[in-house]
């Protein structure tokens, strides 16, 4: 792996590794790490850094829903046009065009179920190209961004072993 790929892999694993950690683990110096990260950000490879949060531990707990959207396209309107319009709403946390039975997979977040429902019925469903919405409220999260939410694997090793 090049040090660029290596640094990216490490940041995807843990975005809070310090420049010093990254330099040591990839056998380069801090200046190289800083340049590489700056380049990755500038080129838009790295879009941002966020904490992975267990929502069930938040008070009050935000409500999330996965929404399936079906659309019809016409000569003037393509997928990108619809997507751009939807992505602008702050309530929309994720938006992907997908293959299969529906067209877009939308991730919506709000303070309450009624807020999310209202958003879908008032802002999403009325978009003329959207023909159907199916909303799935998230009831329990087991894994987010590759991180399992269980108690994890206990370290039951002996403190000193051969």
């Amino acid at each position: 792996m090049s040090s660029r790929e290596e640094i990216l892999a490490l940041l995807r694993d843990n975005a809070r590794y310090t420049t010093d950690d990254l330099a040591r683990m990839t056998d380069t110096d801090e200046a190289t790490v800083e340049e590489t990260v700056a380049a990755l950000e500038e080129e838009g490879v790295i879009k941002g850094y966020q904490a992975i949060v267990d929502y069930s531990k938040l008070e009050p707990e935000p409500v999330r829903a996965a929404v399936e959207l079906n659309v019809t396209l016409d000569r003037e309107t393509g997928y990108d046009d619809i997507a751009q319009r939807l992505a602008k709403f702050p309530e929309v946390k994720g938006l992907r065009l997908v293959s299969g039975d529906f067209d877009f997979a939308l991730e919506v977040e709000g303070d309450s179920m009624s807020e999310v429902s209202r958003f879908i019925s008032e802002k999403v469903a009325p978009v003329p190209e959207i023909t159907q919405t199916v909303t799935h409220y998230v009831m329990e999260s087991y894994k987010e961004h590759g991180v399992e939410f269980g108690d994890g694997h206990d370290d039951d090793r002996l403190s000193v072993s051969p």
Partner: protein
Amino acid sequence: MTFEASARVESVPPSGIRRFFELAEEYDDIISLGVGEPDFAPPWAARDAAIASLERGQTSYTANRGKRELREAIAAHAADAYDLSYDPDEEVLVTTGVSEGIDLAYRAFLDPGDAVAVAQPCYISYIPGATFAGAEVVDVPTRAADEFTLTRAALERSGAADAEMLVLCYPNNPTGATMTREELEPVAKFAREHDLLVLSDEVYADLTYEHEHASIATLPGMGERTVVFNGFSKAYAMTGLRLGYAMGPPEAITAMNRIHQYTMLSAPTTAQHAAIEALETCEGAVTEMAAQYDRRRQFVLSRFEEMGVDCFPASGAFYAFPECPWDDGDAFAEALLEDQRVAVVPGSVFGAGGEGNLRVSYATGLGQLREAMNRIEAFLS
């Protein structure tokens, strides 16, 4: 009538690791760099296969040599990864860890009074195992100056020429040293010239960072005199499942199986199910774990360098083996534990040539590793 231990048992002291374990157990806030096993869980697919086999009630003994499907997967992996060619029916024996395999080989090929040359520092069971088999051990110390590789000079100096058998392990526990094909060539030549059997413990083969792992058995004239040991404890993080294997010429495997069939019957069945899955689908997980060890290795080496602690660039397993800043490694390790609550293992525990060094295991997450290295730095200043 009393249970008096036999002379052989009496002649083997309790393991030095044990003493350090007991010292470390007195504290509950230590960071341990003294652990000789992975901090990862086995790949989920392998655990899942084990669970599924239990659900199906597949818990009977297997063939003495191990399930055929597993032996086939082992032979295929050895061919693929290490260019080793072994017949799954005649040249592979599935054992209860590499530990059992080494013990079988000692008992199968050594007569009382035979000499076994053991490259050291080494895994703590090689020397006691030879003693239990009634053999004499010839210490072959390796040196920091050679980056702990085994050299022809070391073999000559120690009198290994007169031994019946040579035991070596690369990548090495405790040093983290590895050997390239070119470095193994003079060792192979020495073994051929002096007609030595070779036991090659390659349990850390998949954790080789700077070059391709080379097995001594692939060198000319070596396959017929070598038994290769490998297993699932390290690369697949399956230590407690207790599964390994030995590969060697048919007559070697037959002799080892003669003991195994009476004393073990067969290796743990559940673990064999996990191992089949591990070999068939878990290569990616092994690569990922190896990548993580490699990053930590670089982290640790660069911190020692910064502290001015002399540490040769360990290139395998999950150990660094820095020179001990004090003359007395045991005293240093004890003081470090007491003062800074960091456990490392003094090299003296691993036999000849280890006295001046410390084994530092990086089978620990980076956060803990960072903190432990900071504490070592504080201790030194």
